């Protein structure tokens, strides 16, 4: 373990709130029912049957009317906060504001910034900035290789000591197997999960979307799904051989899920994430050539989408991660093939998955909550819990509220959300992160002070 607290930020006044008559749902704590939940000084002080708890002096009261759902706050192990160097897309403040608005109480930021986060001094200054600016706690993954060049290892031990939660070259694969093997060996010294963006560049080169009937009809060079799945299989084998700990990022196809399942079966220490867009959208949606639907890995076919949902359901894929990737309007307002890869996702993840998977009965709500919180544990961080004595990492959601994504603008600095304009059901009203009030929807007034 690193000597420094891995997550930083979210400092504010500790909240004193009585969440009265809410539907508290925490599958790990086996809670699902109407409760009063009292938060005092940023901690969950007491959980009682609804109508049993009184608000102490100075505490605010939120009335759940027996209807609003109180969930453990979500954790996103894969976001791009764009600081340093690309603050015109996002920064620590706006990115974590978007996280809070989406019900997240913790995020892990990717190191593909400018400059790349590959040195301890830079990590130190980022953590200082996060302490001042971040609305929810942020952890930083540092680069596996210097400058994301895929050749020389970054100073992983020093970075780990300076507080890096793990390592990734996200945005690019570690294409060279020998380099990744060295990182796996070095992991024995420095710890930290290696999070892997899997893509064989010799297969994906030049591609701008998934390879298939749609790319053929559009005349756009395709990226075959085997560009990802062959690398997942390769790196699962390497991790198994070195007994390393790897996490596969943003899986996009059935073949990758199969490779992860096989690796887990064989006892390798691997985990995996999937993004809301790969669970809900397909390359058919790309026919419109809407650049908000251009991301890495690309949206794949319907059979892949279904396989990913099934893999999330059965636990082959451990968690949901948004891969929140903001880009400025002018960067996305170009022809599809010219546009940068990425969609924002923090503000819509829960609502989109609730709408697309829970409401139609594909996934139970409790399972979705489990998968949207599980990312923390994969990186050795504490899980959000609805339990007395736990720090208040809580999300209050109106599961009936219908809204159109983007109708009130975005908390993020960027608006390149693949779900923009879609009708969603389920809205985050309140987020408590590390005991502080990180987000309050305009639709909810804290019903006075007792």
């Amino acid at each position: 373990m690193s000597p420094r607290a891995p997550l930083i930020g979210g400092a504010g006044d500790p909240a004193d709130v009585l969440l009265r008559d809410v539907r508290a749902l925490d599958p790990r704590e086996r809670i699902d029912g109407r409760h009063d939940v009292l938060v005092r000084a940023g901690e969950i002080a007491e959980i009682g049957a609804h109508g049993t708890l009184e608000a102490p002096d100075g505490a605010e009261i939120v009335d759940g009317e027996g209807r609003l759902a109180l969930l453990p706050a979500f954790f996103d192990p894969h976001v791009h906060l764009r600081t340093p160097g690309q603050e015109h897309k996002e920064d620590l403040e706006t990115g974590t504001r978007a996280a809070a608005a989406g019900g997240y109480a913790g995020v892990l930021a990717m190191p593909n910034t400018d400059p790349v986060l590959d040195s301890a001094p830079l990590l130190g200054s980022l953590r200082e900035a996060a302490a001042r600016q971040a609305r929810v706690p942020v952890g930083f993954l540092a680069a596996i290789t210097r400058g994301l060049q895929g050749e020389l290892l970054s100073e992983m031990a020093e970075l780990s000591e300076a507080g890096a939660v793990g390592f990734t070259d996200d945005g690019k694969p570690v294409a060279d197997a020998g380099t990744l093997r060295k990182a796996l060996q070095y992991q024995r010294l420095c710890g930290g999960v290696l999070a892997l963006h899997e893509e064989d560049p010799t297969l994906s080169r030049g591609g701008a979307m998934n390879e298939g009937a749609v790319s053929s009809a559009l005349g756009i060079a395709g990226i075959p799904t085997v560009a990802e799945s062959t690398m997942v299989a390769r790196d699962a084998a390497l991790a198994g051989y070195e007994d390393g700990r790897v996490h596969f990022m943003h899986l996009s196809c059935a073949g990758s899920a199969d490779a992860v399942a096989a690796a887990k079966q064989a006892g390798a220490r691997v985990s995996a994430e999937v993004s809301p867009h790969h669970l809900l959208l397909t390359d058919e949606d790309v026919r419109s050539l809407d650049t908000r639907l251009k991301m890495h890995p690309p949206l794949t076919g319907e059979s892949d989408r279904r396989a990913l949902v099934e893999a999330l359901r059965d636990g082959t894929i451990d968690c949901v991660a948004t891969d929140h990737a903001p880009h400025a309007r002018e960067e996305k307002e170009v022809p599809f093939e010219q546009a940068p890869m990425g969609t924002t996702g923090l503000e819509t993840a829960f609502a989109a998955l609730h709408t697309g998977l829970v409401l139609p009965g594909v996934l139970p709500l409790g399972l979705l909550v489990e998968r949207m919180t599980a990312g923390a544990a994969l990186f050795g961080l504490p899980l959000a819990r609805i339990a007395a004595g736990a720090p208040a990492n809580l999300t209050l959601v109106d599961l009936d509220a219908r809204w159109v994504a983007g109708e009130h603008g975005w908390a993020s600095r960027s608006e390149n959300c693949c779900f923009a304009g879609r009708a969603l059901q389920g809205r985050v009203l309140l987020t408590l992160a590390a005991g502080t009030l990180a987000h309050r929807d305009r639709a909810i007034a804290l019903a006075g002070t007792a």
Partner: protein
Amino acid sequence: MNHLLSIEDLDRAAIERIVAQAERFAEVSDREIKKVPALRGRMVLNLFYEASTRTRSSFELAAKRLSADVVNFAASGSSVEKGESLKDTVLTLSAHKPDAIVLRTPWAGASELVSRWCSAAIVNAGDGKHEHPTQALLDVYTLHRRLGGLDALKIWIVGDVAHSRVARSDILAFQRMGAQVTVAGPPTLIPRGIDQLGCEVRYTLDELDSADVVYALRMQRERMSETWVPSLREYAAWYQINGRRLTPRQVLMHPGPVNRGVELSGEVVDSPQAVITAQVEAGVVVRMAVLYELLSGAGARAPGGEGAGDGERARPEPTAARDGDQDALLDIAESGVAAGRDA
């Protein structure tokens, strides 16, 4: 018809209307005075982001024969080289209030994008490897003139289908006009899933004699450096249309410019089966018909457009959920990007 963005947008009746109009213009072309006043006072802007001699000059000639004013804007040597975005270039040029913009770019979907940024009628003169609809229309026109129609014709499109916008537009247009299309070429140059467009796929020319029409695509030399095929020599041995493969009853087409000795042998280029120069001739009258359809036909927009600067249509802000949308969760609620093609 407000724009010509892709063959996908055209039904058979629309294609037939354009072909019939082109036939009327062909009569004009045979006169001593080849100009008609149909589009006098209208402005056609040629905006080309890729080098093009024949398509651009064909459009220019078509516009001039209709008495329209023509402005040519080539991306090289312009503000584009100074980093101006496609959107800003279009908005700037729109200030001159062109009635039509003929657009060629190396990017799929660029014409549709531009159609949302300005009020001019947009004619797609090639968008990346996606479509080249006026080429397909002139190919239909040429076959119509030569064979009387396309119904039940067997048409083989041979060569580098993967990188060909002509192939995509032709597959759609030929099928829409009743023909059966087969694409043939090296497996590295036939994109996965192309059969979903309704065409057959072959990797050899063994059954080429079943074709009524053989449409050879240009084999671009730069594909060699990307090693799509082992050598042009081997390519020619397997896929060249030559006197041995072409039968006298078949019609030979090619979008030009021809690589003699690669996709076509010299003998077939000069053979009576070849309609390659007829295709070039057809280019002008078909493009006249397209401009006429867009700028003066029924449903054409008012002269001068409705004013430029309509750019906000590009990214409409989503509106609040309407009551009627209650069952359309996860559907796109805005009248936006996906649905907004042809208002």
